[in-house]
């Protein structure tokens, strides 16, 4: 028994001694390195794009010698994001679309950035509407906006010319779109107007955009008490327009299961006359498909003469994993500020960023919507003007028109479920001439309403 008590004393001393030394060690550790993983590029990016990103990482590490940054290829898709979220294998800094951020924040699945946010020198300059997308119900900042877009009409200048249309005078009303589409398909054999109709919710997304431009809305109210209004008269109008172009004019081609990437791929290969997508897709057209800049034209989505008509706006935010310690959170915020925000608020950083992009043949100057106030937006564009290498001239119709348009956020409650409910009716209109639009919209509305009530 004596031996056991002695043994216990020895053990206690050892444990305390180890504890003491490790405590001393942890104060020393405060100066040690911290490693964070960050979302980099979508997989399949060109080697130049990857080089450009690594150059930025090197620069950041030089400025912050105690932080090591590990780039992780990243692309947001519904199933993979859900898997990584559940498993906790997202990089420390990752990206989420506007549609999901607030729900994730409310569920505690994003880190609270508010204390660090307040320390940012430019935190007062944010565009309020855009910042709201990254603010949860309790008013905490859980994600910082990194890019905002509005829907735009992309068109192929070469096909316009071939069809005898003036590429500098793109359509400004839906009637003109219909007419031009018919002419293009007749004269060039390529589809004049293509609309996303894939089952991955892009069908519902674009239909919603068209409905907004006619003056309709998909929801009334917010949260789980919102009322679904999918079957409003503007949705019917949008679908009838689609029906006419598809079956009467036959100007939409023969393949209709195109999603965001498919349509970009087809456009870059010269197979599409006009299509609606986010204003920032030019980057993807260059990075994935090496599009020929001479064919690219950009203009605004035509709005009906209706007080409520507007253009759908969305965007992406940068967020941080919830279970990180203070050191990692601070490092993550430094990276977010350096990589995403600084190029928009600091002249030096903007120029440096632009130089790196140009050196690696990446597009600089793709039209983006302001994250900060208008003054800052104009300033940032002025800084990078000498480095712009995108065909800005071809994008004039958009740049001139977008700020006159009313920007409308995506339906706030159960956004993806609303889009999901609309997929089937879009697909049906394009594949079955005898689609009963009214009946299908009623079903879609019921489906969306059920999802809204459940909060999914």
């Amino acid at each position, binding site marked *: 028994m004596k031996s056991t008590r002695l043994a216990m004393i020895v053990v206690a001393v050892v444990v305390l001694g180890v504890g003491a030394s490790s405590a001393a060690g942890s104060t020393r550790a405060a100066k040690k390195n911290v490693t964070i993983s960050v979302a980099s590029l979508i*997989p399949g990016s060109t080697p130049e794009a990857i080089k450009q990103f690594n150059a930025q990482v090197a620069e950041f590490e030089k400025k912050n010698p105690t932080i090591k940054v590990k780039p992780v290829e990243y692309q947001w898709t519904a199933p993979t994001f859900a898997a*990584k979220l559940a498993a906790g*294998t997202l990089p420390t800094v990752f990206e989420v679309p506007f549609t999901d951020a607030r729900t994730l924040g409310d569920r505690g699945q994003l880190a609270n950035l508010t204390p660090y946010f307040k320390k940012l020198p430019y935190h007062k300059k944010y565009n309020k509407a855009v910042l709201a997308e990254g603010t949860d119900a309790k008013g905490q900042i859980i994600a910082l906006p990194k890019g905002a877009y509005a829907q735009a009409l992309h068109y192929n200048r070469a096909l316009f010319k071939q069809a005898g249309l003036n590429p500098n005078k793109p359509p400004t009303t839906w009637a003109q779109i219909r007419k031009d589409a018919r002419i293009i398909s007749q004269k060039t054999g390529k589809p004049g107007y293509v609309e996303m109709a894939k089952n991955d919710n892009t069908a519902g997304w674009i239909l919603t955009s068209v409905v907004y431009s006619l003056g309709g809305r998909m929801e009334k109210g917010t949260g789980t008490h919102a009322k679904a209004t999918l079957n409003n008269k503007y949705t019917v109008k949008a679908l009838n327009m689609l029906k006419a172009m598809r079956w009467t004019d036959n100007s939409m081609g023969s393949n209709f299961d195109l*999603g965001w*990437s498919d349509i970009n791929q087809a456009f870059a290969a010269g197979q599409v006359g006009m299509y609606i997508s986010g204003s920032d897709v030019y980057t993807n057209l260059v990075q994935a*498909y090496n599009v020929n800049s001479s064919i690219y034209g950009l203009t605004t989505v035509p709005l009906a003469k209706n007080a409520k008509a507007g253009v759908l706006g969305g965007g992406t935010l940068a967020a941080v994993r919830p279970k990180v310690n203070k050191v990692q959170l601070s490092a993550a915020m430094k990276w977010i500020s350096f990589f995403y925000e600084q190029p928009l608020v600091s002249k030096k950083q903007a120029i440096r960023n632009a130089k790196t992009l140009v050196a690696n043949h990446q597009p600089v100057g793709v039209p983006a919507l302001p994250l900060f106030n208008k003054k800052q937006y104009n300033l940032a564009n002025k800084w990078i003007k000498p480095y712009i290498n995108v065909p800005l001239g071809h994008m004039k119709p958009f740049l001139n028109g977008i700020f006159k348009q009313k920007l409308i956020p995506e339906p706030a409650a159960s956004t993806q479920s609303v889009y999901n409910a609309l997929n089937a009716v879009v697909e049906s209109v394009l594949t079955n001439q005898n689609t009963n639009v009214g009946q299908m919209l009623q079903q879609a509305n019921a489906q969306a309403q059920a999802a809204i009530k459940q909060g999914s």
Partner: protein
Amino acid sequence: MSKPSSGGGLISELQWLKPGTRWGMRGLQVLLLVALVVIGLGPILWLAKSAITPTIDTISHPMALFPHGAAWSNLSQAWNDVHVGRYFWNTVVIAFGSWAVQIVVATTGGFALSVLRPRYAPLIKGLLLATLFVPAIVLLVPLYIEVVHLPIVHKSLIDSYWALWLPYGASAFNVIIVTRFFDNLPREIFEAAEIDGAGPFQLFWRIVLPMSKPILGVVSVFAVLVSWKDFLWPSLVLPNPNVQPLSVRLPSIELQTSVGVFLAAMFIACLVPIAGFLIFQRSFLGGTGLGGAIKG
């Protein structure tokens, strides 16, 4: 199995002498051969041709033969930019690991159930048989949740190959056919070895395994085929593109590169299975036939 040197016997020698029957039959067989070439070989030949055709030609004249020359750059782009080689290697690693786990589980389990026969063997055999009747989909969701968050260890197997190797190992079919094979091995050899003082491990390693080459061949072919072809499960548990096998990666690649490069990547993905098949024909065709013979 009768070894026909002259047909399966459906048409007797006498009938074969009749020119009507002979040429009628030959005609049908030629038709069948042509059909098999067009249907079986055609798509692959088109893929090979299009892999080195420029995208614009493939889109506008899919059936033409190199109207503007070949584009060998598709292949090099597929290999270098799209990194087909990396995904191919991932596929190989996954196949190898799942093969190893399946062999270990099936042989050790089969040996215990067939040769050592503990008292609870019938219970295990019953459970295995029951598992055979359960469609794989039933496992999917809880297995996924389990892999996302392992119960006792509280770790995640997401993005780890063990999330594939271990579940593949749980193949009741493998264990059952190996057990049956061991059942059919002559007992005298075991008893002789026992008398010579062999313990169970030596019995397993020195006697049973060497005699099991045929069944191990069948299990290996199935194991590699299953892991090579699988799509859904790897797509769920390997969200990180760098560790994904070809089957999961190709659909994403399709949307991120031009058509010509994508077809080149697909062609490269086909080469090994086709080559493997042509070399190991007998195992493939024999194994599938064996499956039929067992049940017939």
